[in-house]
């Protein structure tokens, strides 16, 4: 019998645990010719900002071993165009939609939450904490527990009570558990991890940085061990908080690794650039792997790698 793949983000039930990561599924329309977006657990939008943004200059992308450096700079038309043209397309088709939001100040985040909270078709809000805080000399919210907590709590206050708020965390911080706890204390019902750690590449032929912006976010299988570690640590510290695991997932095995570390849902990101059908393939592979291992429910596998080991030699140690 196939395993029960249902999963929950707070009280919201998803029919399966495979989401798309923010900024990797376009508006949904671009993916639609290749894969049925309604069959995804949920689609996460690119980060929506208050005003339109032109993004960063090109080159915005550099390929690195098993990864991709990008500095797109949150290009997008702004929340009003999103509400007028992009969200209705998703809502009409019944696509479960997690809207990622980004801003330069706490006020901007809460204004976005207010604009989006009653829009039809929003399943949850994801707070992109990797935005520079203009009120704190451009330091990103995700690097400071109090700033992260403050943003999450402002969004939680502005959003309708039954709309889950997800905080998206960055791995290149001193203590990801401290940030996670601050976000949960601020009212986040779920955590999404990991966002891209910052990296850099230099083009040795041109002898200049490969990206126009200099540094960029690293994604792809290169960062998967970072994601496993962050999910593992946060699940150990906050076992009751649902975690959406992401970072370089390309197969069902990769997804299962994050599930065993403690993720109750898994997002595919960069792999969609390589294979737009990847979400559905990963779901099918994950289902098969769970079935092979005798699981009746996905939920039974979540965090299973944390179970105490039963090796007797350890207990017998004279130390």
């Amino acid at each position: 019998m196939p395993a029960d793949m249902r999963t929950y983000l707070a009280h919201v039930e998803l029919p399966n645990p495979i989401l798309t990561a923010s900024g990797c599924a376009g508006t949904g329309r671009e993916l639609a010719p290749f894969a049925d977006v309604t069959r995804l657990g949920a689609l996460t939008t690119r980060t929506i900002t208050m005003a339109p943004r032109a993004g960063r200059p090109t080159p915005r992308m550099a390929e690195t071993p098993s990864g991709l450096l990008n500095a797109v700079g949150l290009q997008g038309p702004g929340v009003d165009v999103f509400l007028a043209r992009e969200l209705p397309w998703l809502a009409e088709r019944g696509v479960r939609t997690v809207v990622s939001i980004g801003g330069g100040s706490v006020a901007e985040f809460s204004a976005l939450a207010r604009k989006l909270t009653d829009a039809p078709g929003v399943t949850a809000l994801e707070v992109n904490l990797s935005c520079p805080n203009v009120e704190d000399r451009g330091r990103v919210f995700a690097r400071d527990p109090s700033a992260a907590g403050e943003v999450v709590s402002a969004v939680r206050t502005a959003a309708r009570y039954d709309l889950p708020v997800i905080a998206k965390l960055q791995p290149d911080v001193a203590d990801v558990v401290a940030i996670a706890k601050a976000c949960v204390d601020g009212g986040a019902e779920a955590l999404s991890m990991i966002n891209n750690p910052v990296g850099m590449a230099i083009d040795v032929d041109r002898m200049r940085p490969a990206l126009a912006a200099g540094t960029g976010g690293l994604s792809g299988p290169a960062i998967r061990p970072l994601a496993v570690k962050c999910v593992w640590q946060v699940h150990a510290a906050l076992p009751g908080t649902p975690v959406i695991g992401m970072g370089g997932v390309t197969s069902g095995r990769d997804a299962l690794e994050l599930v065993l570390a403690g993720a109750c849902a898994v997002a595919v990101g960069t792999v969609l650039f390589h294979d737009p059908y990847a979400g559905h393939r990963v779901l099918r592979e994950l289902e098969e792997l769970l079935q092979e291992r005798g699981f009746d429910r996905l939920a039974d596998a979540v965090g299973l790698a944390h179970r105490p080991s039963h090796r007797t030699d350890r207990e017998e140690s004279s130390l």
Partner: protein
Amino acid sequence: MAGSPVQVTGTVLTMRRVDAYHALTVVAPGIADRFRPGHFVTVAVGGPRTSTLTRRAFAVHDVKPDYGGTVELVFTVRGAGTAWLADRRARDPLDLIGPLGRPFPLPRDPASCLLVGSEYGAAGLFALADALQQRNCRVDFVLGAASSDRVFGALRARRMAETATLTTRDGSLGVRGSVVDVLPGVIADTHADVVYACGPMATLGGVTAVCAEFGIPVQVSVEELMACGIGLCMTCTVPVIGDDGVTRMTRACVDGPVFRGERVRFDDVGTIPFDAHGAPGGDRAR
């Protein structure tokens, strides 16, 4: 996006050398059926457990009805991805997505069309030339490259076109110089009504400037670094002026790669123009 692109596992039919380039023919019926001149395809490189995740985008040189439909791509080895592709042999499977992008618009009535291509970017012009000739258009070519072995399709261009002007940087074939240098003379001689151009940004900028002097329309197919080719990744953006006069960072993969030359802000490629929609400092919120 004209038509609907498909993702298919094609089968390599042949891989051959053409001058300095590789030409790869793949059986991919779904793509061949939908193809129109100017479309491009993307290829996943490195096999199923690849460490190179971005898809490689290629102009289509030719489609043929053989074996249900074949697609021919022309490329040069520039890195690990194209090196892997150059190692493909007959019967190897290949993950292809296409046809992608906005194709070349064709004139409704017979016109004199000048096709300008630089290096292997010229590959995309031959299917266009066929389509134009079927509409009784006059076709002339200007093809250029760094050296004679890098001028793509010179023979075919000479055979099919009224005239074919060749240029090389080192003077080893045709006129010494670039395609832009000979363009004013060729436009005057051929009484070109419209110019189509493929090649690097700098060349396209030069071609557009010459066409502006002559007051004739020019359609350019831009080459910008892409990761996905289907509009997801937002990396292939180019500053393009829209119908409303507003400059937007426009995706070359879905809104291009073919643009009206005068709409592309070639001098501002690699920057965010200060007056672009959503440029930093151009809005109230920041």
